[in-house]
């Protein structure tokens, strides 16, 4: 997979919640990590993991892959989609482990 020079998107509501929910020091780390990710998804600082999602679900979602990385320790993580043909990374959630677990598992 080649994700160089991908552009990062989110929906406007989530953008506000990232700004609101992430403590400022984590926001800086998050921005730094997204910057690394946009250039190189295998950047050593990311420990990025591809989530195991079936082709059927990916088709429904209209995306190619689902990923996650930890922003800080195990508390805060970021989940995002990638769309190869449009060179897009779409952040779908940022939150601590409990918040995300409650929402997605």
């Amino acid at each position, binding site marked *: 997979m080649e994700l160089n020079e991908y552009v990062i*998107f989110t929906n406007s509501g989530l953008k506000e919640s990232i700004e609101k929910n992430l403590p400022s020091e984590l926001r800086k780390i998050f921005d730094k990590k997204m910057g690394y990710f946009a250039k190189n998804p295998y950047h050593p600082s990311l420990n990025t993991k591809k989530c195991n999602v079936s082709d059927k679900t990916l088709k429904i979602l209209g995306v190619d892959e689902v990923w996650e990385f930890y922003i800080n320790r195990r508390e805060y993580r970021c989940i995002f989609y990638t769309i190869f043909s449009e060179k897009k990374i779409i952040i779908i959630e940022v939150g601590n482990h409990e918040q995300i677990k409650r929402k997605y598992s």
Partner: protein
Amino acid sequence: MITKKTKKSFLFKIEDYILYILNRLKPEKSDKIKLNKVAFFVEFAYLFFKGKPLSKAQYAAIDNGAVIDSYDPILKKMQKEKKITIDGYIVRPLKSPDATIPEEISSFLDPLIQKYALLDNSVLINLSHSTDSYKITTDNEKIMGRIIDKNLAPLETFFCENEVVECEIDENKLPVVDKKKLVRYGIK
């Protein structure tokens, strides 16, 4: 008038930090490589978990991994002041740190010093090469000698690698995004 006193964070002077570590290394394992690597890992772990610096030391990214910046002249000065002895690579303390180290600091540092001091020097060098801080500073070992930014310490997720939880997502709950409502995320 009521004045509010704020508790000042403890910060090691470089020489005290070196003496603190050397006093906790076994004589047969007390060498320059061990000292430098333990100093780096312990300080970056402290930064990672506590979010503040531990010492006034800066760390440089060289071929041998992360080291205390200008450690050689610092050690020579300490030798001249009879704080340490140097015999080739072996460095031993002759004194304890001047400052009194708070209990909450030493209780955090001592197990970490013990942990990293147990590792062979080659393992410590490899481990420091694999840190994000080192890789970013050297641009994957292309540029050597730069100072490692202490602000990179929060990226070192390996300090809690045993705690990392695998991706646990119920794919049926993943949201379908409305592509028309996407906004570009600006990285500051």
